């Protein structure tokens, strides 16, 4: 018996293919939780002759605008130098006079948070922030920024559990940013775990949403408090709510004004009665989501402070979602209007994926032929991405305000994301363009996402892993 026997034996231990299906189905929870609020802000005009060619169906409920896809002739030439700089270094490019690209080359891993590049040094046990540096990316330069860093303590007892720890925060340019470390703890027997985390409260720099949690996996439960940064005191948000509702909740989704909350719960062995509730903090009204509009909705998302998008799933015998019907629910009147009926649920791992990708109050609908429409689930308005055919490996992400759709195409033969094409559909301006990327195969790309309404970034490293890159695109 030697180690190679162990290796050969271990090589034969592989997960069932069904496990992948189980895991990929988790994305339904993620996409539903990604509540987006549609803001009515028009972006600055682009100097491109890529216009809406409006086409309207007979029914106003089904009116469809068409965005014509425009593929830029100019290609992006990605950097791949492994020469490691002494600290972060920046270079830039313009692509088709439409996109400003900034390539930040780094000697080691740096973070990007609150619009700034950061370098954090933690103690060995990762309990203490020892040092920090910040840079603003301005006019193709990295400008060092001094921040007024504060340290606060968490010392809260909730339901007999003592939550404690330290965190760091500052305000810069009107934005609050914070840093926490690993706060998870166990009881002496190691049978129960608990944790605490923060979320930002939109429009507020004086408070954070403190999320106290217990349990793991299906028994994970979470209770929110408002944490005041100046005093370190916490404020109850659900003071008048039946404790049996909050005790069974695994998270809360807030409306922009912070007046309304969706108290989310999923049934489990320990919490068989968990369900989703709509709570109005001003009136103290608590309503089960499955009773709203009398349609038996499974879950909901905020479109705005007066409107919910209700999701009704039809599942098969294995509890996998087959199709989704969407309703726009007017909270003041209690009236529900169907905006999309029984559309198949999108699964990226299908051979030829089609169906609906949900983004809170909007969704992307992909036909079996690869035709793509963006649907406003509040109004039912549709926008067709004309001249564009969806292929396996393509994906979309909506920006925080919900008015711009990031498009990227991934090469399935690449070891990493392998983004071969990237672009943006501006749903308000009526433009949709993308450009090809050259040299992506020389980088290991590990993540892509919106940093704000206009900025997309990609994390990457050279194949020898000697040099890290942050690729920032201003659309």
């Amino acid at each position: 018996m030697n180690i190679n026997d162990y290796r050969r034996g271990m090589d034969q231990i592989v997960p069932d293919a069904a496990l992948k299906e189980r895991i990929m189905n988790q994305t339904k929870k993620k996409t539903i939780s990604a509540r987006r609020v549609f803001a009515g802000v028009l972006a600055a005009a682009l100097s491109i002759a890529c216009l809406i060619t409006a086409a309207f169906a007979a029914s106003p409920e089904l009116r469809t605008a068409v965005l014509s896809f425009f593929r830029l002739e100019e290609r992006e030439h990605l950097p791949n130098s492994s020469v490691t700089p002494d600290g972060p270094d920046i270079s830039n490019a313009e692509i088709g006079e439409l996109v400003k690209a900034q390539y930040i080359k780094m000697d080691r891993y740096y973070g990007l948070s609150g619009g700034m590049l950061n370098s954090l040094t933690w103690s060995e046990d990762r309990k203490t922030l020892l040092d920090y540096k910040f840079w603003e990316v301005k006019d193709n330069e990295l400008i060092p920024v001094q921040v007024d860093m504060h340290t606060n303590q968490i010392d809260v007892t909730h339901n007999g559990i003592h939550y404690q720890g330290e965190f760091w925060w500052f305000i810069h340019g009107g934005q609050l940013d914070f840093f926490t470390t690993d706060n998870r703890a166990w009881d002496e027997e190691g049978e129960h775990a608990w944790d605490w985390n923060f979320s930002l409260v939109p429009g507020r720099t004086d408070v954070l949403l403190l999320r106290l949690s217990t349990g793991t996996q299906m028994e994970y439960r979470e209770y929110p408090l408002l944490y005041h940064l100046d005093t370190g005191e916490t404020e109850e948000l659900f003071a008048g709510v039946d404790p049996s509702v909050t005790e069974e909740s695994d998270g809360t989704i807030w409306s922009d004004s912070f007046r309304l909350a969706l108290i989310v719960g999923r049934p489990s062995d320990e919490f068989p009665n968990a369900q989703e509730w709509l709570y109005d903090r001003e009136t103290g009204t608590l309503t089960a989501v499955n009773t709203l509009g009398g349609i038996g909705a499974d879950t909901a998302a905020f479109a705005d402070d007066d409107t919910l998008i209700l999701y009704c799933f039809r599942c098969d015998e294995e509890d996998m979602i087959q199709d989704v019907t969407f309703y726009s629910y007017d909270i003041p009147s209690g009236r529900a209007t169907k905006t999309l009926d029984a559309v198949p649920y999108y699964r990226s791992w299908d051979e030829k994926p089609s169906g609906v990708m949900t983004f809170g109050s909007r969704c992307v609908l992909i036909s079996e032929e690869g035709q793509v429409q963006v649907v406003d689930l509040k109004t039912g308005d549709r926008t067709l991405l004309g001249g564009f055919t969806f292929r396996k490996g393509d994906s979309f992400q909506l920006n925080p305000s919900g008015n711009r759709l990031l498009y990227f195409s991934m090469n399935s033969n690449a070891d990493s994301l392998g983004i071969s094409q990237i672009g943006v559909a501006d749903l308000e301006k009526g433009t949709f363009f993308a450009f090809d990327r050259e040299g992506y195969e020389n980088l290991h790309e590990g993540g892509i996402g919106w940093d704000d309404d206009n900025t997309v970034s990609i994390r990457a490293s050279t194949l020898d892993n000697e040099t890290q890159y942050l690729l920032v695109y201003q659309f």
Partner: protein
Amino acid sequence: MKQTLSARQLEEAYNACGTAVYRLAMVYLGRRADAEDVTQEVFLRLLCRAPAFADGEHRRRWLLQVTANLCRDQLRGFWRKRVTGLDDTLPAAAPEERTALDAVMALPEQYRLPIHLHYYEGYSVAEMAEILKLGQSAAKMRLKRGRELLKMELEGAL
């Protein structure tokens, strides 16, 4: 960077690291059903937290770290006090391979993972220590003690 993880990114992460996560969970828990549950939870955390990774290796280490934490959490549960060996639903392996798997699985918990991460996944002592949240000297000692207990012809002695 507050990024979101698309289904495609989750799939890419699972394709790249799913088997390693599952194998580590199997080494720790020994039961297929438990390992599947932990693997699912690990990728749920990736989906929900969507941390920014410097590269694929950074992501892999994060996933294995979360796996080790979740497995430890499960083993500490009262219903998992009695740790059994590999369950009988595994694919049939050659006798010597099965013996080797059983031998590693029979090790106490604190030695099992260092052995697997170092000799199977190929992590250095420093990397393995980072994944298991151990000091390097503790990681080195566990590896040494595990190797002594195994009495196996392990390559790459420290």
